[in-house]
């Protein structure tokens, strides 16, 4: 399946979940989706469309918490960023780690550094600062200077 066809299929399939699409160029696309749909979207990309999960980036901005899930369609050079917005108080989203192991560590890291909860994560313990960082203090939040 070629790149354009995959993106067309994706848009058609998840039409009601997509909030915004930004096409920077043929190889860089950002699609903002409803955060409740992350599991079914990731499942489609990983299992049906052949995307590889590169990593996820959490951001703490004026708008609240955001996550970019970076997916790569190897061979075509496409990086598809699935972007979700989370609420500022009590940010949480469904974990992808029951689908693929690649997201296990990064979700633990985002939980530890940003305080984002990953629901149904198999083992959401600390990854980086095991045992030597205060509870409830999140170093990557914007209030930490």
């Amino acid at each position, binding site marked *: 399946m070629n790149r354009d066809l995959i993106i067309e299929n994706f848009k058609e399939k998840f039409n009601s979940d997509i909030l915004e699409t930004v096409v920077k160029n043929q190889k860089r696309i950002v699609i903002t989706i409803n955060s409740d749909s992350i599991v079914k979207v990731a499942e489609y990309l990983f299992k049906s469309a052949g995307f590889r*999960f590169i*990593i996820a980036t959490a951001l703490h901005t004026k708008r609240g918490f955001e996550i970019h899930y970076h997916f790569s369609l190897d061979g075509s050079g496409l*990086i598809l960023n699935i972007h979700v917005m989370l609420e500022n108080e009590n940010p949480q989203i469904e974990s992808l780690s029951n689908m693929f*192991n*690649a997201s296990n560590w990064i979700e633990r890291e985002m939980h530890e550094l940003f305080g984002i909860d990953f629901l149904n994560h198999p083992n959401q313990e600390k990854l*980086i600062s*095991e045992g030597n960082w205060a509870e409830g203090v999140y*170093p*990557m939040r914007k209030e930490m200077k």
Partner: protein
Amino acid sequence: MSKKTLIPIGPYHPLQEEPELFKLYCDGEIVKDIKWETGYNHRGIEKLSESKSYDQVFFLVERICGICSTSHPFAFANAVEEIANIEVTDRAKYIRSVIGELERIHSHLLWVGLAGHFLGYNTVFMWAWKYREPVLDLFEMISGNRNSYAMFKIGGVRRDIENSKISVIRQVLGEVKKKTDLLTGAVMDDPVIHARTKGVGILTKQDIIDYAAVGPTARASGVEIDVRKDDPYAAYPLVDWKVITAQAGDVFAKAEVRLLEMYQSISIIEQCLNGLLKEKEGEIAVKVKEIPEGIGNGRAEAPRGEVFHFVQSDGSNSPARHKIRAPSYVNIATFKKSCIGQTIADATISLAAVDPCYCCTERMAVAYDATSGDKIMNANELINKSLERTDELKKTIKSNL
């Protein structure tokens, strides 16, 4: 449930460059489970990057890894240039690729040496590191530094490779090629190395996809991914080369992929040097005014796999958010697949096979009994276990000849 023995490898151990702790839960000789702890030396580079200007970030990210120090500036440059839509000159592209490939050669040589050391082939270790030296000398000639070359900047490179230096680089590459033949022959033809590495630490294609592993680790399991081909950058689309893969997924396949990749790197550099001769000297950078608001996804193929940098710019002179993913982050996690079910002697080389960014900071690796807390094994004893295994195999293979 049977009693298991815990063998920690780390936090300081010659297998690893950074301090990190692998806990091997063993039942007799067999590894039953593995856990990983890190953060001993967490430097907060992502956070630090937000307080640096774009020019300074290059020096910061160059210090993430001591061996492949140019791969992070490479990916960061790709990310920022994507935000600002900057197209660098062809001469800068060639220089970037020359630096990237020279680094791949010296990094792979370092791995071959260490892998040899863990298998009890100290001659391979001495040779590989000796042959790596001239490559580092080339870096010194080009950049003034043997490592952390500070060659990259937004819009190009900081130093030219003058045409007068090209013949020296060619001469050294010729020598490196001969030595690579020697090492490849030594690894490919030795029955003991075959016995120690074939069928050991196997990662299947499905494991690679599940853990999203990258680089030689993925390519040795038949997953043909390489950012240089998939998402071409710098001079890689301008030269002719191929992606090396192997199918077996074991330690031998990983060694094979790395050794054969060195030939591709030599070929890429030679073609880039030809390209340099056609370009005008000194045209190594374009002027950059400001970095506009936006996001950039930059990646580069480091010796260990894809390095990924995500940069968000708010229009100021430093990144608003800078996410970095080094290849070892995804490759290390595959240990759960490659080590479980192996003997302790094979676990050492299985851990080393993904090249988890190690150096010679040997401090300690002490084993404690999980229940009594008694010390039962130190680092040398652990390596000795691997050496003994090689000796045994040597004897068996010799007696069968």
